[in-house]
């Protein structure tokens, strides 16, 4: 049999690259929007003492007589005593646990999703801090997400983070900072009048409000002890037409949330008050106030079919395609 010697070194990397055009904003105040929420993920059981851990003895973590617990806190095993004997001790199998902690809004309900399905809810404290735990997971990669609802029933955006879970260890996801909610008091505002932009975040947080159309403007305010913030925005500087606003929160220079939901209002020649009620989520196709698998199923039926109902065609382009599912995924509640 004849063998051909492989000689060719493949060097021809064909690159068809477009030219990167950096899209820079026109407003000097853009330096305000620099950072996003940094979530810290640590693993108890990897033998490395990480942020928030008192100890980590790896596989030796456990109850007394181990000096380090399965939650990476130092065990208080006491001393003295003696005697006794016999019997055998079987070390319990370490549990696979994922702990979540962070800030939402005072006394708000915080919902945790695992791979887009609700797995836990909790109520944040008056200081907006929350924590929750889930256990019994199989090892693997998961996408966790959290969101909260403010006192008016407005939902935050989903904050997601992929986590690789290892069997028998505790993973801590800390530093979660849910973005503020946002609403406005007018659907249309007469140019030159003020529009109230308000929402909820953590208490005493610095709130940055962005109002954008062609040019982006920023305003700053501070939330009160209930996490409520309000800013009266003077629309004199805005052109006629539709504008968008969003907000983010920071505490000192340590914690900065990402921007939350974007909502719109119109600047015109008259003022039209807006009814203050929770916004109906796009994607809630069966009107149960949730956006979940049922809605996905309805949309999936209409995927690429002719003449879909307008309620399913979320961007109104006459078809149900990936864009409609993307919009649904943004408003997802589980």
């Amino acid at each position, binding site marked *: 049999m004849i063998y051909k010697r*492989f000689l060719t070194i493949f060097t021809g990397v064909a690159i068809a690259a477009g030219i990167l055009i950096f899209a820079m904003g026109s407003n000097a105040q853009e330096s305000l929007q620099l950072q996003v929420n940094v979530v810290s993920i640590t693993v108890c059981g990897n033998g490395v003492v990480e942020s928030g851990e008192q100890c980590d003895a790896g596989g030796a973590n456990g109850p007394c007589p181990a000096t380090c617990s399965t939650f990476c806190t130092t065990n208080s095993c006491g001393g003295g005593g003696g005697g006794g004997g016999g019997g055998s001790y079987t070390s319990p199998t370490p549990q696979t646990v994922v702990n979540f902690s962070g800030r939402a809004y005072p006394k708000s309900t915080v919902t945790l999703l695992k791979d887009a399905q609700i797995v836990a809810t909790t109520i944040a404290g008056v200081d907006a801090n929350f924590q929750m735990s889930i256990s019994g997971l199989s090892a693997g990669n998961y996408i966790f997400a959290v969101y909260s609802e403010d006192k008016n029933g407005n939902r935050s955006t989903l904050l*997601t983070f992929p986590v690789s879970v290892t069997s028998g260890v505790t993973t801590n996801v800390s530093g979660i900072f849910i973005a503020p909610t946002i609403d406005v008091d007018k659907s249309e505002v007469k140019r030159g009048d003020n529009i109230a932009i308000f929402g909820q975040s953590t208490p005493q947080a610095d709130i940055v409000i962005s109002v954008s159309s062609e040019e982006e403007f920023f305003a700053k305010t501070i939330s009160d002890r209930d996490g409520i913030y309000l800013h009266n925005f003077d629309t004199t500087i805005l052109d006629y037409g539709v504008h968008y606003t969003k907000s983010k929160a920071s505490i000192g220079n340590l914690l900065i949330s990402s921007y939350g939901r974007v909502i719109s209002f119109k600047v015109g020649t008259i003022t039209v008050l807006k009814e203050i009620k929770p916004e109906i989520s796009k994607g809630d196709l069966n009107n149960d106030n949730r956006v979940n698998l049922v809605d996905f199923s309805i949309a999936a039926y209409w995927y690429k079919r002719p003449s879909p109902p307008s309620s399913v065609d979320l961007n109104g382009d006459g078809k149900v395609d990936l*864009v409609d599912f993307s919009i649904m995924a943004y408003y997802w509640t589980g």
Partner: protein
Amino acid sequence: MFKIQKIKIIIVVCLLLLSAVPTFAAEISFDAKTREVAIGEQFEVNIFLNTEEEYINATEGKVIFPENLLELKEIRDGNSIVNFWIERPKIKSDNQITFSGIIPGGYIGKKGLIFSAIFQSKNEGKGTIEIREAKTLLNDGKGTQASLSISNLQFLMALD
């Protein structure tokens, strides 16, 4: 006596930028490793999403492979970052895999597995596994298309 024919697969990443005007571009790519497999042997190709600095909540595309060189044996979507498949990855013709799915809330990361394909080598030759008509959409509530670059796989299979 029969000797096992070894073929060497050299994989070269081809970058194709699909869209301009990005600050950062998301990327769909394959894991690029040089492998040595026997003719008729199976090997796995993973398709990954690198979102760079953006949250991506929907993706779709087609994976095209040369049917004269490769035979698709299996598609695996376990451990995928995609939570819900609009079109689960499946073979649509002899040389085409289509996929479409969403990630509620969006995914941000450098190496999110979309799915894996198991191929069996058939013959010597040069070929490309390509991704076509790919889209990734931003998690912005509007379905805005993200800037996307594609890294195709070029490979050369030759007897060693």
